[in-house]
Each structure stands twice: as C-alpha cells, then as structure tokens.
C-alpha cells in the first residue's frame, strides 16, 4: 500500500492581532504569546540541544530577542518563521560553542544501541527508541526532522528558518530519515 505523503497542516499559528498587541507592549499579550508558543518552542530547543536547562535558557533568550527586535518584524511574513529563525540562531550559537557537538556530519552512523534501547524495547516503548535515534543524529538533521514532522513546516519555511537552500533542507530530511530507518531495521523494529 502506498501512503499519501500528507502532513497535517493544522498547527496553531499566532493571530495577527496577537502580534499587534505584542508590539504595543501589552504585558498580558506578552504572557499570552509566550504561553501560546511554549510547547512548540521548548520542544524545538529540547530536540536540538538535548538539555532541558539549556532549552530553558534558550527559550528566555529567544523571547528577549523577540521583544528587542519586534520593530524589525515584517507583518507580511509568518510570525512563526520569524520566531523560529531567532530560536535557530540562538540554539546554533550555543551548539557551536559546545565541545564535541556534531552540527552536520556528512559521514555519520547512528550507534547500534542506545544505552536504554533494550529496556525500551522490553517495555514496548518504541517512541523512546525513536527519540533516542533522533537524539543521536547530528544537530542540523535533528532540526530538519523536528521542523518538518513536529512543527509541520513546509520546505520553504524550514529553509527560511535555517537560512539554507531548499536542496540542503531536503538532503538533511532524507539523510536523517534514512539513518533513523537503518537504526530501526538494526533494532528489528521495521
């Protein structure tokens, strides 16, 4: 059977009114907007930096930057894309300073077994294995996968967030998925 390659497009987006209120400096609007994006942004950072404390810091840094640079935001563009581009810059800046972090290895292989893979299999926690496999990918592949599958962003949006050509985004998604599939095959989960 051939599956349709559709991605669910029903992801929440900020209302233009919300952005206008944010610009006015309304504290309630600020808290509402932060709350509105908290799960998505926190998930993005957690996937990318794999450290809850660092994700927490990056979350706050990103909003500080948003407030400082809001006058530069072009309302004709997507607020989501603008927000995630700021988040991307903050996260990549942190990862570049982190010793031993692989941003984008052209030759990489996922480890055959994550430390907790066996227990996860025994517990039937397939999602945990998937998350572990994803965490073992180089950062830029993790980012491409989370933006595509968890954020539901289009190719052009991912390219805008990560400031990379469309072909690079495609290559990262493809290689990331291929590595994940190989890993699941080795674990005999596919």
């Amino acid at each position, binding site marked *: 059977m051939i599956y349709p390659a559709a991605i669910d497009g029903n992801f929440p987006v900020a209302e233009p009114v919300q952005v206008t209120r944010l610009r006015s400096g309304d*504290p309630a609007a600020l*808290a509402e907007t932060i709350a509105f994006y908290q*799960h998505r942004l926190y998930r993005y950072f957690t996937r990318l930096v794999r450290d809850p404390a660092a994700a*927490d810091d990056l979350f*706050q840094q990103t909003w500080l930057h948003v407030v400082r640079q809001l006058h530069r935001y072009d309302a004709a563009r997507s607020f989501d894309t603008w927000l995630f581009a700021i988040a991307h810059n903050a996260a990549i800046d942190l990862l570049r300073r982190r010793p031993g972090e692989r941003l984008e290895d052209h030759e990489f292989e996922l480890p055959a077994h994550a430390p907790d893979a066996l227990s996860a299999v025994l517990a039937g926690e*397939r999602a945990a294995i*998937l998350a572990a496999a994803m965490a073992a990918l180089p950062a830029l592949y993790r980012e491409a996968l989370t933006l*595509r599958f968890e954020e539901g962003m289009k190719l052009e949006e991912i390219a805008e967030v990560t400031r990379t050509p469309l072909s690079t985004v495609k290559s990262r998604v493809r290689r990331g998925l291929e590595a994940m*599939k190989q890993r699941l095959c080795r674990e005999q989960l596919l």
Partner: protein
Amino acid sequence: MSEHETVRSWLALSAAGLLEPAEERRVHEHAVTCPQCSAELEDYAGLSAEMRALPAPQPPDHLVTRTAALLLVEADRRQGSYFAVGAAVLVFVLVLAMGQTLRVILGDELGDQAAFVWLLGATVSSLFGTTAALVLTAARRRTERSIV
C-alpha cells in the same frame, strides 16, 4: 541512474511530503510495479507518522511566568533608558542656558566667574547623578539575573 535507483533515493522525501508533484507521481507509478520500493516506502511512511507523534517534552511550570517577568523587567529598563537620555539632554541644555544667562546678567568679568562656578557645580552634581544611576543599573541587572 536507473528509474529504480532514482525513485529509491526519493522514497524518504516522498514519505516526508517534500517531493514535487511530478516526482511524487513517478514514485507512486514505480512503487506499484516494484515490491521492494513499495515496502520501503511503507516503512518510511510509518516512520514519518511516528515522528509526527513523538511524545513532546513538557516545559517546566515556571517557564512562561519567569520569561514574562524577565521581559517586563527588560521593557522597564528600556523605558527607563529613554527617560534617562531625555532627562540628560534636557539638563545639559538647561545648564548651558543658565551659564549663559549668568554671564548676561552679571556682566563680562563677574559673569564669567559665576558661569564657571555654576558649570563646575553642575558637573559635580552630574557626576553624583551618574554614579547613582550606574549603581541602580547594576542593582537592576542583579534582579534580572536572579529572574533568569
């Protein structure tokens, strides 16, 4: 590259929904006649579905409150900076105007001395004011850090 190899290299992107319509058609047409690609495409489609349903990490409870508080402090600091710059410009103009007025009222010699004393006094007062502002700014930064 054969059609099989070309299509095979597109399977992951097909499951991710990132192929052009013409490429997508080619994948589907080929998969109908190729059990290997069909099975692999099915694997990728299942994997993609699971990726979309990965459990999301839960943000800490305090995250929104702390971030909002930090941003309010930042807004307050920026507003304070604008006021401080405005006030400094106003005071500078007033000090110069006052010095000039003293010179005009008291005549050349006495006026020059009075203007000098006035400007000296104003400079010393400004230095005290600046020091106080810097101390307050440092205290505010400490508050910000405690929030972060």
